């Protein structure tokens, strides 16, 4: 789909961790992002959406999410447990974000 150039990484997460088939996974991600299913593979639309939501994109600018920080937001946005995010929270003792529990 194009990975972080589009929404490929997000759709893949739903397939990988929830076993969702492609149509259901795309619909789920589109609804959470507030875009159409067709937009998910559009590099122009998704670059803007990803910048606005600060969930990481290819053309990085200073002070935007780049790695684990982007995944914190993705976990919250998709309402999805991400293993390394939970591990990071555990290691640094983060308990504050209710939506991450």
């Amino acid at each position, binding site marked *: 789909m194009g990975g972080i150039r589009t929404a490929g990484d997000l759709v*893949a997460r739903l397939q*990988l961790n929830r076993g969702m088939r492609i149509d259901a*996974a795309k619909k789920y991600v589109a609804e959470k992002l507030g875009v159409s299913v067709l937009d998910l*593979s559009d590099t122009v639309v998704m670059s803007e959406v990803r910048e606005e939501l600060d969930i990481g994109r290819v053309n990085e600018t200073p002070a935007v999410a780049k790695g684990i920080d982007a*995944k914190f937001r993705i976990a919250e946005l998709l309402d999805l447990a991400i293993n390394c995010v939970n591990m990071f929270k555990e290691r640094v003792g983060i308990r504050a974000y209710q939506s991450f529990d």
Partner: protein
Amino acid sequence: MGKILTRMGDGSRVEMTAAEIQQDLEAAAQDAAERANVPSLTDDEIKYLLDLYKCKDRVVGVEEGKECCLTYDNMTSKIKRAHIPISKIQQLLLFERGLGADTLELAHIDYSFKQCKHVVQYEKPNMEQAVLQTIAPIFYGSMPNLGLYSVPDGPVANPGDMLPLGKIEESKEAFEQMAEYAIKDMVYVGSELYEKAGADGINFDTTAAAGDAEFYAALKAAEILHDKYPDMGIEMGMSGEFILGLHSEIEYNGVRLAGLYPQDQVKLAEQAGVTIFGPAINIGTNESLPWNLARSIVFTKACSEAAEIPIHANLGMGVGGVPLTLTPPLDALSRASKAHVELCRLDGL
């Protein structure tokens, strides 16, 4: 219309008439349907494939809206094989930011769980640092590779030596012992990379290359990992369309594994907790690509229709209608990809 330029299964160029291509498509589809006891291709699907080969475009692609996700096997060895001296973490960043990969996969150059076990303490820091720097989901991938557990590479007597001597029961016992060793290694490596290093999932690649006992071992390992970590992503990619019955009687959940085709393999994978399944249909190098593609589509379509989990068909060197060559030609790779995704309603490749 003149001759159509296509290829053989080994990648060499061949010119065929439209009638010859149609004949190959129909013959291969019928052959696959009879072998797996699944429906053959419809007239419309045969016409779709024929049109795909008549099209003179060098590269083709799926219709807009039918884009799918890609998973990989042995991702971080691909760059190493090209002798580009960059670290595995840099390779993952390259795939994510340079090549637009939907998923990433950290792998040891000796791509077998038995070998990974020895270096797991060095793989975990790589994974820990990779998950801090990347955004796309990351697998740790490797092969069950049951062959490494028998003499001279492993501790168990080699069934390949015993079978010609008629030692059938001893061979079966050896396969079962090898499977137990493999299960332990797969669960150990999978647990370490998931629980202690933050991987999103585990990829069992080239599963069942050593037959039914290896398929059993991978299913059992997936089941144990799924029970330990219900949120863990588990991908299982196969090695061929047919489970070789080298043990011949080994079962998983009451189903004999020898002789299973993809539409039955995926049901057992689902029971084991696998979240993405990858059927692999081998190439016949002395047959044309249209023949190979039609055959692969029949097996893969039946698998996709039977599945409840995502299907990422294996398309690459020597599988899924892609020629058996180290440098797969784009004309062949893109045709195979488009046809599989559109005719089989695939979730990924």
